[in-house]
């Protein structure tokens, strides 16, 4: 009987000591991966058309206002040069697909090959070294609708109303991502939706954590595009 108890205690001790051991310790001798550029090291961002899913909202100019506010903020307050895709429709489709993918992707994760290819082509055409994705899925449901949405959101990982992502055009990898619930979008907003100021505030809320671009005067003159 004593032996059995001793064995049980020993087993418990072993199990407890195993709990303390890290599972994610890096394998010794693993080659370090080449350092990915940080988001501030990008200079020329290709701004894709806003991936806008109006849902139950009737905000006719929302995509346009978001687009313009984003361009202003990223250019004037973060110091990136903003470029436009030459072909709008493929860019819009790519924006929708990238926004969907980026929602669950980790930073530094590369996009699936087909998306990566399209992204690379568009960026090369525009001479961009980064790609900016902006997705808006506003929710104008009433209180009941929002409660139901909250329940389904727990289960289905519902999208935040405003999401942004920056990708490295060369590698097709996610460098930065953020999602916000804009404070001024709360409540059932009738058409035409939030005011231009509310749109601008939402964009600032979203891109506030984005690092400034390395100032052009400090960057080497011949940066790879």
């Amino acid at each position: 009987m004593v032996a059995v108890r001793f064995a049980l205690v020993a087993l418990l001790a072993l199990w407890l000591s195993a709990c303390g051991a890290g599972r994610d310790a890096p394998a010794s001798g693993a080659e370090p991966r080449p350092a990915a550029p940080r988001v501030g090291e990008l200079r020329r961002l290709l701004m894709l058309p806003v991936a806008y899913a109006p849902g139950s909202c009737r905000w006719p100019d929302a995509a346009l206002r978001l687009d313009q506010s984003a361009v202003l903020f990223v250019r004037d307050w973060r110091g990136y040069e903003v470029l436009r895709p030459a072909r709008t429709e493929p860019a819009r489709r790519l924006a929708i697909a990238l926004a969907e993918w980026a929602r669950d992707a980790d930073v530094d994760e590369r996009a699936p090959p087909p998306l990566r290819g399209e992204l690379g082509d568009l960026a090369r055409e525009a001479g961009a070294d980064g790609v900016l994705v902006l997705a808006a899925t506003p929710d104008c449901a009433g209180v009941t609708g929002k409660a139901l949405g909250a329940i389904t959101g727990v289960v289905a990982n519902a999208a935040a109303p405003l999401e942004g992502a920056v990708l490295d055009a060369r590698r097709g990898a996610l460098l930065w991502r953020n999602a916000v619930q804009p404070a001024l979008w709360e409540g059932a907003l009738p058409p035409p939706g939030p005011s231009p100021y509310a749109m601008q505030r939402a964009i600032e809320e979203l891109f506030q954590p984005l690092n400034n671009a390395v100032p052009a005067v400090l960057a080497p003159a011949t940066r790879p595009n």
Partner: protein
Amino acid sequence: MRALPRSRIAACGAAILACALLAGCGSSPDDAAPVAGYQPRDPASEIERVPARRLERAHELPPFPVTIAVRAAAGPDLGPVDRSREKTVEEKRTLEGAGAIATALAAAAPPLYAGTIALGSLLVPAATGLELYERRYQNTIVRTLQEVDLPGQVRSALVRRAVPPSGEAVPTGVSLTLRTFGLAPRSGTCANCAICIVADAELVVTQDGTELLRDPLLLTPWRRSSDAPPPLCATMKEFADNDGRRLRDAILETAQVLAAMTVHRLPAAAWAE
């Protein structure tokens, strides 16, 4: 023709109604709603971009050697709040708030670009609006600003880049005067609002007593030189955290930027590659 019984008509009607209702529930009107199409069109900037002048070199002449002088303006010289850039109600409120602070501290503050919070103002607890910021953050910010010598950093950066004068050529004088350096609210004065590093310097180049160039170097939220990057902004807390590390980094970066702008504007001078 035999009439259908009333009960069967009612049953059929109920079935049709139920089917219609179910079909209606299944279809979402939103699916069919077209997404408002738009053609991207870049908006005009609200930032006033002040053109940057350059001192070019004639092809036949070699680059001229330079001597560097960097100084900070001294003495209280606070101008009125500049309202010419007011764009929105929010910005107007900001300027009014900043103006109140500036007016209250006119005697104590260092020379500043109008509409900004003076560095010195943070030391004065009675001034309007300063109760927004926690005292410990103020103390850290002020201490950091006192510790980091911006003119010294700019001077070092420029001296490192300049080719030392040699031979008999008379060096050209490059003088940079920091007229304003401080923190300004980006769009509103509140405890969690972003404040930005601002700098307003004047570049003067002289040769044999003749002035060759006089040009401002502006890094402010709403008015900046065309070769200047956006100002570095953060909340008071973010600047103060980790013993003011972010503010320290921002000041050092500002020094590098001012030096680089100076070099860019003087391609005629001899700079190290």
